[in-house]
């Protein structure tokens, strides 16, 4: 399979990349790692007239952490994320996701910014970015702006980015000592997208309570789906197996997932309840040094 012919640019600076996007408008597609775009071009699901490849732009693949925020360059690969001590220690849900994107070969090239901007409805990062309250920095002709993850994803393969904007960085607040997170994915094989994935971020409070909870699902809607009812249940009293079960049941309500060759809609609903339970338990156990017993 060969992509249709296209005009190819690999500018050495972001400014030139933005100028190319301005010049070519919606005829142009940005390429980051190419691990989603190229397969789609080979299948001729998309055939852009112009490809603007970002691989020569320097300094887009750094991971920096200070006291309040972790800044991840958009061209940081999944492998770089999964093997980063900073990411593993500070943002465990993001490390969980990075090590289950695609397969080891894809993870060597695929990038977090590319995956976010691609916005597949069943990708791993979107749910994690929403759960961790990430912001995406984008540069365009008018300068830079910051977009909250929850506002970024609009539909399958659709973000709020203008055709002339480029994601340059993803920034995620450094969690406090009482916060912890996890991401759990169901897929049939490595390489596959999520049948269902659940990202969760919890804040541990007094007396075994959960003061704050974010629970976000992927694979069950056009965008990441926040299980707000489940979040409220998790915050309403001490976190015990019964509350966990109730939260899982709550997450299943009002879901309207797609059916496809991997799983039908009802299976996705059922498994969402189970995976919400397991993801919350995994995050909670990470936050507790000596308490377990929530099981799965």
């Amino acid at each position, binding site marked *: 399979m060969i992509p249709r012919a*296209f005009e*190819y640019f690999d500018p050495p600076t972001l400014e030139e990349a933005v100028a190319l996007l301005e010049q070519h408008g919606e005829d142009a597609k940005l390429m980051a790692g190419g691990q989603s775009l190229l397969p789609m071009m080979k299948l001729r699901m998309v055939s852009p007239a112009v490809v603007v*490849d970002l691989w020569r732009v320097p300094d887009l693949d750094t991971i920096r952490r200070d006291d309040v925020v972790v800044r991840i360059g958009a061209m940081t690969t999944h492998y770089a994320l999964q093997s980063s001590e900073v990411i593993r220690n500070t943002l465990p849900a993001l490390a969980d996701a990075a090590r289950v994107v695609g*397969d080891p070969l894809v993870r*060597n090239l695929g990038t977090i910014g590319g995956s976010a901007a691609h916005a597949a409805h069943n990708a791993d990062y979107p749910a994690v970015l929403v759960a961790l309250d990430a912001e995406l920095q984008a540069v365009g002709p008018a300068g830079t702006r910051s977009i909250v993850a929850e506002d970024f994803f609009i539909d399958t393969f659709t973000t709020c980015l203008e055709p002339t904007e480029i994601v340059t960085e993803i920034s995620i607040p450094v969690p406090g000592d009482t916060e912890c997170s996890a991401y759990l994915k169901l897929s049939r094989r490595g*390489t596959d997208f999520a049948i269902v994935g659940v990202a969760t971020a919890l804040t541990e409070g007094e007396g075994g309570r959960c003061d704050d909870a974010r629970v976000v699902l992927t694979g069950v809607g056009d965008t990441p789906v926040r299980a707000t009812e489940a979040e409220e249940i998790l915050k309403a009293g001490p976190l015990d197996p019964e509350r966990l079960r109730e939260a899982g049941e709550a997450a299943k309500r009002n879901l309207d997932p797609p059916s496809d060759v991997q799983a039908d809609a009802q299976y996705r609903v059922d498994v969402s309840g189970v995976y919400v339970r397991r993801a919350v338990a995994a995050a909670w156990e990470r936050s507790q040094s000596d308490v377990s017993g929530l099981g799965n």
Partner: protein
Amino acid sequence: MARTVQATVNGRKYHEENVEPRLLLVHFLRDRLGLTGTHVGCDSTNCGACTVMFNGKAVKSCTVLAVRADGAAITTIEGVADEEQLHPLQEGFWEKHGLQCGYCTPGMIMSALQLLERHPDPDEETVRLELEGNLCRCTGYQNIVEAVLWAAGRLRGASA
């Protein structure tokens, strides 16, 4: 607009003109450089038969544009052995019967090279997880895993 690609493949420098931007790395290696040890399997980023080392990282060469190879250092299966001496991974596939039809083998070995760089003393689960991007339609995974573990032992012995 065709480009010129200068790349080092298996230690040898190549200068190729008129490389179309849509040319995929796997076709560049096979059709332009004649290195047909790298196979085209699924051609859809699933099977890993086309795996090569690209600037030190194992990648699916059906999912890389050849123009990105400009300035790159690439190792294909043809560059794994040291002259007439097989690489321990190649020996392992021989000793443990790690192949049946052999179609996936070059990709398996390139992925396994990276695996052993990252995990010199892997357990079986690590081998299986790190080879997730490579499919064997003969389903000979058991012997492939044994071959990689055998090679890991040989390489550790050699470096001890």
